[in-house]
């Protein structure tokens, strides 16, 4: 090989090695259990059950999609529905992901959070900039009756404010369970579906109150039922809690919860 070619090859190999190294650093595997300690644990058991108050703690959770909102006062019904109807990835309304599955999204760029200011950084009078990102699904059990989306984001070093979280879980019933309602408390705006049917649109600058919104009566069918929710927040805390309640307001607990 000619010298110039050897030099070129050497440069190529070094560059490739460096790039690979960088890529490895960038995709260095986070210890999820450690990162989310105190709030979530990775799923290790084949199924879970609702807790003693009926709250559903096992979820597939997608790392947050950036959608900057500098204030929580924008969450009208219309704004909520419009912004939670944007299709960020194919199959977002139907997917039943597995732990570690990835999706590619195009999302609005926001600079890293500025902890010295009182508001998350938001583009000032500019056109929003969009970036591509690869986001991962995580199969997690919440340590609490609520799902602390904020800590999911900060633990994994993702955008924490102005974000959209997709969450999905599978409810398994031995028989039909009729006349139940989905009861959700949510910080902040959200949409919820069971088996592809929208049951709740939650708007407003709301906080997570147990059973603060409930759906019409539905039937959880014998077999698998898909419970899917998407939650959006501006500044501040983000979290939700969800359970099914019967006609007397008591929690429904006779089902199991799996990720698929």
């Amino acid at each position, binding site marked *: 090989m000619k010298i110039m070619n050897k030099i070129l090859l050497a440069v190529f190999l070094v560059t490739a090695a460096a790039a690979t190294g960088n890529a490895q650093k960038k995709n260095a595997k986070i210890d999820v259990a450690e990162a989310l300690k105190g709030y979530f644990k990775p799923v290790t058991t084949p199924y879970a059950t609702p807790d003693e108050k009926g709250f559903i703690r096992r979820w597939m959770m997608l790392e947050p999609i950036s959608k900057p909102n500098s204030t*929580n*006062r924008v969450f009208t019904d219309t704004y909520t529905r419009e912004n939670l109807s944007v299709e960020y990835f194919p199959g977002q309304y139907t997917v039943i992901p597995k732990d570690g599955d990835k999706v590619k999204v195009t999302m609005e760029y926001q600079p890293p*959070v500025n*902890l*010295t200011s*009182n508001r998350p950084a938001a583009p000032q009078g500019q056109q929003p900039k969009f970036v591509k990102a690869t986001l991962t699904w995580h199969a997690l059990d919440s340590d609490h*009756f609520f799902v*602390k989306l904020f*800590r999911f984001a900060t633990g994994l070093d993702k955008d924490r404010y102005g974000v959209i979280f997709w969450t999905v879980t599978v409810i398994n019933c031995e028989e039909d369970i009729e006349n139940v309602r989905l009861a959700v*408390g949510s*910080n902040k705006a959200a949409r919820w579906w069971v088996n592809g049917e929208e049951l709740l649109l939650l708007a*407003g*600058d709301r*906080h*997570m*109150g*147990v*059973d*603060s919104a409930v759906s019409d009566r539905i039937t959880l069918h014998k077999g698998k039922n898909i419970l899917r929710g998407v939650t959006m927040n501006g500044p*501040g*805390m983000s979290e939700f*809690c969800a359970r099914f309640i019967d006609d007397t307001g008591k929690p429904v607990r006779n089902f199991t919860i799996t990720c698929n």
Partner: protein
Amino acid sequence: MATAIAAMMTIAASAQIGSPYIHDPSTVVECDGKYYTFGTGGGGLISEDGWNWHSGGVRPGGGVAPDAIKIGDRYLVVYSTGGVQGVRYGSHVYAMWNKTLDPESPDFGYTDPIDIAGSNGYEDCDGIDPGLMMGPDGRLWLVYGTYFGYLRVVELDPATARAIGDPVNVALSCEAGEMMYKDGWYYLLATHGTCCSGVNSTYEIIVGRSKYPTGPYYDNLGRDMIHGGGRLLLASEPRRIGAGHFGRFIVGDGIEKFSFHFEGDLDRSGRSVLAIRPLMWKDGWPVAGKPFENGEYSIVSERRGYSLELAVNNVPMNTGARGLSRNADGPVVALEDQKLSDVIGTWPEGNIDLRIGPELFRPHQAWVITEVPEAGGYIGGAYCKITLAGTDRTLTATADREITTVPEFTGAPEQLWRIDQLTDGTYRIMPKLVPGTDQELVLISVADSTPSLGVFDPDSDNSKWNLNKH
């Protein structure tokens, strides 16, 4: 002066007057006969009578949402700062003492603030919005926190204000916490909703209760405040939006008020204003009273349900069916009420005394109660005149410690009445002055049919009245 009075009179009845502009007011504290409240940013408001407020309160340290309490012969003031040292949600609660709240007093001077509680920026708590409560057993408690995470309660040493022990989470996703105690229950007040949006704020005051100061606090549905529970105390009133930052003020046995701000007062350029309302209690829960409204009323004794009336002859109405007749022939018509002009000619001139008699909604039983803005006020209200509807005849206290009516309102203090809604929803009606005595006397029933003036007894229906708006 006249312009100012006219301006005051165009503002809806029962709004604190003067310049009651403040955000996140502390509990109102009395010091040497004046009332003080401090707010976000520093400074505060002072009032000589609890009704007319002006700036002048002094509170150094800036920060947000102070609170204040009198302990022994000195005053403890707390406030909070957020985001210190570049750490989001890293907040601090500071405490300082003063011998007086009067900045003109030679004894005025705050101690250096000490850091007593807060949040490290990484936990589910943002340690602002402190609230103080002295419990029935002399233990001092601090509640703090805001929407980011939990409200917490920690005990303080009443001698130093330093924290004793670890804080306990008591509520989720609310702010402006305050505690109070009554009859074996501890109450946690807080706010839900959007603050700081003027007339678009959905700010509202909610409450839960517990047998223990450290909770758990439950609302009327049995929901834990850690689960976002809370029973509404007050959100908005017509023209005044977004109530928040509750503070309790006990006037006396059976008479309580609460102070707070409205985020936006539509009658005052949408500004954040101080408000004070009656605090009632029903079935172990606090209930917000409404501001007093000028209008025509029956003044009805709680003792017997009889109506305050001029001691004049009852003039019968010679209309309508009588007795046992069931004659249903002929058209059915609406009969007119008895009119003032039908009866006033039968009344004497000069002073007319009073009775209490069966309510018949007659002219001699109809009273117009009107705030008199230039007459000043008291905590939670303005002095009113009480005149017989359609006339200038005015209810007056006499030197005999009785009451009468005089033909004309002159504005004399014995013709001015303080109206306080009591904790059970009835009213105490008290003259500004009873001639010839320093004694504080109120309108009472001394018999079913006889009104007089006497010492207020909060446990007796003789001291209480209902105001039934016509």
